[in-house]
């Protein structure tokens, strides 16, 4: 397998090309979470690209912030769930790569629709409960935006997971500090998120370098050591929105817009083709 950094670079290339090709989509959060997806799918998670909806005896991943579908689709294709050529159909008519992830078109790798925010943690808990009922030792991973935590359903789920000792769940928050209308501390301040998860009864891991793929692997591996210890596990992952493309990095401005031809060229010049373009 190529080095994780090379995989991440190619996924970033795919993201900007897909969003440019569709002339729409969400590059900012996708680029910020690329190292997480790379670490999860190419190192940490036990999963089978011969897709099976029931995920029997394999780990499950649930994406709650569905708008970062470009990074999800590129990761799944690069991991062997479907042909990378299909990435060119992103957001186009009759595609399985819908604007937001869906099971409706039967894209391998997707187990739940997301896009309307705040629902993924509940789904991940349900999948984790099924693992327990079926006597499996497998793990459920979920990813959430930080702005998404404004949605109250998350806090219902966070309360539930601790109360019911859902200790086979590792939920990661992409803490990039940005949401559509601006910085999270202006729109709706999360204050001390770690203290909140802690007060709700979760094991909390802080990951300061969410755009260092080795650091992400280390945090996820550390999280796995807490599985089965009676508490759900949260990773608060600091990332930069738009990481890897200098003019997109660190701003909410690139949450949901596509680069033009000139911007695409500028972005690709920073992201060498490591595994071959789709």
């Amino acid at each position: 397998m190529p080095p994780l950094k090379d995989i991440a670079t190619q996924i970033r290339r795919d993201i900007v090309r897909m969003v440019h090709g569709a002339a729409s989509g969400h590059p900012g959060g996708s680029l910020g979470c690329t190292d997480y997806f790379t670490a999860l799918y190419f190192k940490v998670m036990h999963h089978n690209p011969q897709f099976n909806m029931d995920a029997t005896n394999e780990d499950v991943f649930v994406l709650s912030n569905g708008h970062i579908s470009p990074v999800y689709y590129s990761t799944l294709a690069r991991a062997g769930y479907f042909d990378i050529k299909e990435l060119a159909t992103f957001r186009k008519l009759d595609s399985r790569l819908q604007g937001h992830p869906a099971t409706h078109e039967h894209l391998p790798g997707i187990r739940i629709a997301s896009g309307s925010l705040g629902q993924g943690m509940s789904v991940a808990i349900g999948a984790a409960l099924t693992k327990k009922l079926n006597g499996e030792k497998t793990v459920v991973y979920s990813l959430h935006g930080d702005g998404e935590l404004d949605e109250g359903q998350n806090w219902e789920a966070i309360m539930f997971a601790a109360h019911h000792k859902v200790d086979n769940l590792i939920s990661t928050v992409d803490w990039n500090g940005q949401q559509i209308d601006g910085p999270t501390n202006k729109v709706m301040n999360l204050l001390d998120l770690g203290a909140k998860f802690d007060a709700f009864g979760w094991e909390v891991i802080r990951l300061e370098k969410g755009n260092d793929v080795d650091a992400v692997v280390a945090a996820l591996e550390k999280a796995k050591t807490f599985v089965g210890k009676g508490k759900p596990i949260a990773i608060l992952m600091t990332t930069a929105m738009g990481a890897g493309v200098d003019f997109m990095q660190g701003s909410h401005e690139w949450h949901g817009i596509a680069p033009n031809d000139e911007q695409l060229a500028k972005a690709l010049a920073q992201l060498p083709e490591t595994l071959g373009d789709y």
Partner: protein
Amino acid sequence: MLKEIQPTGQKDTRSGFGDGIAEAARKNPNIVALTADLAGSLKLNQFIKEFPERFVQCGIAEANMIGIAAGLTIGGKIPYTTTFANFSTGRVYDQIRQSVAYSGKNVKICASHAGLTLGEDGATHQILEDIGMMKMLPGMTVIVPCDYNQTKAATLAIADYQGPVYLRFGRPVWPIFTKVEDFVIGKAQVFSEGTDVSIFACGHMVWKAIEAGVILQEKGISVEVINIHTIKPFDTEAVLKSITKTRCAVTVEEHNIIGGLGDSVAQVAARHLPIPIEYIGTNDTFGESGTPTQLLKKYGLDTPYIVAAAEKVMKRK
């Protein structure tokens, strides 16, 4: 004759659900019951006693409950969510839409205390829009059984039926007049055949339709009383067969006449065989506190209104 249909007893439909889910769980180890702090009201006591490990208490957090149910299906569980109809639908519409219906998950949304017959709690809890909301969702099956036996039958049947289901039942003690074995998802139940007027009803109102039918038969009117317990998929064939003979219809439901059973009947008629229809249901209004009997009278859902509607619609032919 309709007067030969006599109740074999009286029970609440929610007890039919409670007895049904316990029996279904004995047969199928994948059934899981969830509740949002209403296990007692939904009569889950027996289920919890026999299968404590398959019971999930969510607290007063319905949105989370629906999401957890969707997740439970990954790996083959058959989750039944339980709370009042209002909190089963309007409160969690988007969760049902995205995580259950659009995602094609095998979740059974089981909703008690629907309609006016909830009674004294008043309009905050008397949902009259839920059938409409649920039937609009692509892929959603909507079932409104009429008595204890039929609710039990439906609770058992949906375990073996792949896909999301909305099962609507209620609070009051109500006559039992059907047999468990007579229920088939999607197949209308004919109580009487006739040529003058068709009465299509669902839920508690089926008994009221039978009462009205008795009066109409005594007046010499040839009436068809048909229970449309499955609102979706709709038994178009049964409705067409009936109105082809009678050429007019009354629809009866404990629901807003906008969006409910009446609309489904009217759509079939408009497409295939335009006929006059009279609608019995609430007329674009909220309910209020009162006893079930008082409320059905005040909102025009009681037996005499059905009789009057039948006589009126026959004159419009």
